[in-house]
């Protein structure tokens, strides 16, 4: 029958379209990977590592904002908890290896994330954001007051150590490739998660929570798991950052940092995987450029201005706008 051949033709063309879209994505990812691999030959590795750490932080944050629809205003707490835990362990115990220190920092942030989630997850919208902010302020207070954190000064001179007892991480090139590997692990984990059966449920919750409930989903459980993963990865970013800079700083716990990750994510594009990476690179680079010039004191004001322009005029962020443009002009 004409109807059925027509139908199968439609199905075929749908499958073709899906395949070619997948291929384009793969090629783009490979190009980006190649750039990251050769970047330290061109740019200062420590600067690149800073970008990668913040990119991982923003990717972790975006798992919540972009793919679950939860706005946390307390993610600095996880970055700092990862960083301080790793810093403390590596500074205090000579027999704790670098990778153990990082794993422990990640674990601490994950557990803290579970705590935050259990308190906040039933709240919606602005109330959720406020509770995460309040909890993060408690963590900040703790880090200022606790006897082992170095108070206002933070923790200095954290040894980078050896990776697996073999690779000397004092070497910036070695350190860079390690940070890159960690970043890729986090990025790919989020990519996998977002595209997994679980990720589909998260998207559903983000797009229409009452409908997801009415289809039998106990949405709070999914939100808790997403929150815990996000917190853990933010902690991983903080842990690695501490190793890179040999420093755990109170800046990481300050609510400015929670705001900055929101800015990075919105600027790059919330709905996309790559957006937060681009946003982080943009913000870190801009901060660096400004601090070099006469506008050093204006960093916050300029970032604030960019934030306002993004929210008003470029809702989809850099990557989102590029995607829209390509869709319009290439099809």
């Amino acid at each position, binding site marked *: 029958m004409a109807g059925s051949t027509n139908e199968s033709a439609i199905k075929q063309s749908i499958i073709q379209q899906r395949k070619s879209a997948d291929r384009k994505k793969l090629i783009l990812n490979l190009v980006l990977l190649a750039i990251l691999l050769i970047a330290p030959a061109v740019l200062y590795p420590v600067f690149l590592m800073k970008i990668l750490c913040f990119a991982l932080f923003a990717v972790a944050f975006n798992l919540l904002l972009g793919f679950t629809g939860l706005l946390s205003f307390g993610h600095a707490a996880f970055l700092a908890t990862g960083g301080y835990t790793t810093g403390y362990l590596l500074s205090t115990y000579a027999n704790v290896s670098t990778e153990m220190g990082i794993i422990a920092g990640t674990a601490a942030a994950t557990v803290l994330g579970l705590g935050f989630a259990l308190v906040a997850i039933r709240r919606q919208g602005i109330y959720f954001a406020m509770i995460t902010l309040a909890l993060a302020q408690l963590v900040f207070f703790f880090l200022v007051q606790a006897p082992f954190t170095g108070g206002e000064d933070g923790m200095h001179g954290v040894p980078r150590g050896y990776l697996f007892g073999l690779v000397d991480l004092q070497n910036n090139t070695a350190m860079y490739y390690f940070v890159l590997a960690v970043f890729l692990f986090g990025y790919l984990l989020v990519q996998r998660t977002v*595209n997994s059966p679980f990720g*589909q449920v998260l998207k*559903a919750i983000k797009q*229409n929570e009452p409908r997801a*409930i*009415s*289809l*039998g989903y106990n949405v709070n459980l999914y939100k808790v798991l997403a929150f815990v993963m996000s917190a853990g990865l933010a902690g991983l970013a903080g842990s690695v950052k501490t190793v890179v800079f040999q420093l755990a700083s109170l800046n990481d716990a300050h609510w400015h940092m929670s705001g900055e990750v929101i800015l990075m994510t919105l600027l790059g594009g919330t709905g996309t995987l790559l957006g937060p990476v681009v946003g982080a690179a943009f913000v870190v680079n801009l901060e660096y450029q400004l601090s070099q010039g006469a506008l050093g004191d204006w960093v916050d004001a300029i970032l604030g201005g960019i934030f306002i322009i993004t929210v008003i005029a470029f809702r989809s962020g850099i990557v989102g706008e590029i995607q829209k443009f390509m869709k319009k002009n290439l099809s």
Partner: protein
Amino acid sequence: MSDQYVLETRGLVKEFKGFVAVDNVNLQVNKGHIHALIGPNGAGKTTVFNLLTKFLQPTRGKILFNGKDITSEKSAAIARQGIVRSFQISAVFPHMTALENVRIALQSFQGNTFHFWKSGRSLESLNDRCMELLDSVGLTEFADTTTVELAYGRKRALELATTLAMEPELLLLDEPTQGMGGEDVDGVVELIRKAAVGRSVLMVEHNLGVVSTLCDRITVLSQGAVLTEGDYKAVSSDPQVREVYMGTASSTAEVTE
């Protein structure tokens, strides 16, 4: 007695800060019936749906599903047991394709919904069933269309396909034809008629033409309380109903043809 009813409420009450939105409602839906819940704006119809599906907690009263007390169950658990609702405002996942919308419902019965490490490909085994459901509501060619881009009538059809994917025993439809033109209404009526085979339906509906052709039994709600109950003929000739619901005599004449 109780196995006659798929759904029963006993003395159901919902108060909002002293305002009684649902007032001592005893509702009985027969198995296999399409049962209409009608009443003027603000009568409490949507609130009753919210109570039945526990989107709101009843102040007092009991809800029985197939004779079993489900008053203290949670929303998600109620959906899994077979009471699935639609919403007054069309409820879809706007930035997913039509196929993905339906698949979310099918997925809910699979053991993999927490599996964040699994590839999305693992869901493709559900696609055939999704296509069947989309076929049944005439959306085959829109399978890969992002839902926001669908026309309103098609969104509602998609919503119905998604609801049916849950294989509900009792379907709760809140104004399925709201905001639709004549042709679309006829389409939805046909879909509901088809969907109702082998199930029970409780629907809120303002279009009395739809109610008269589709429904076996009608409950009229007014100011939160049950005003009367019966088949279309009995209800439409009830003078109380004319007064509170149908308003003027002329509009009554119109809908009864």
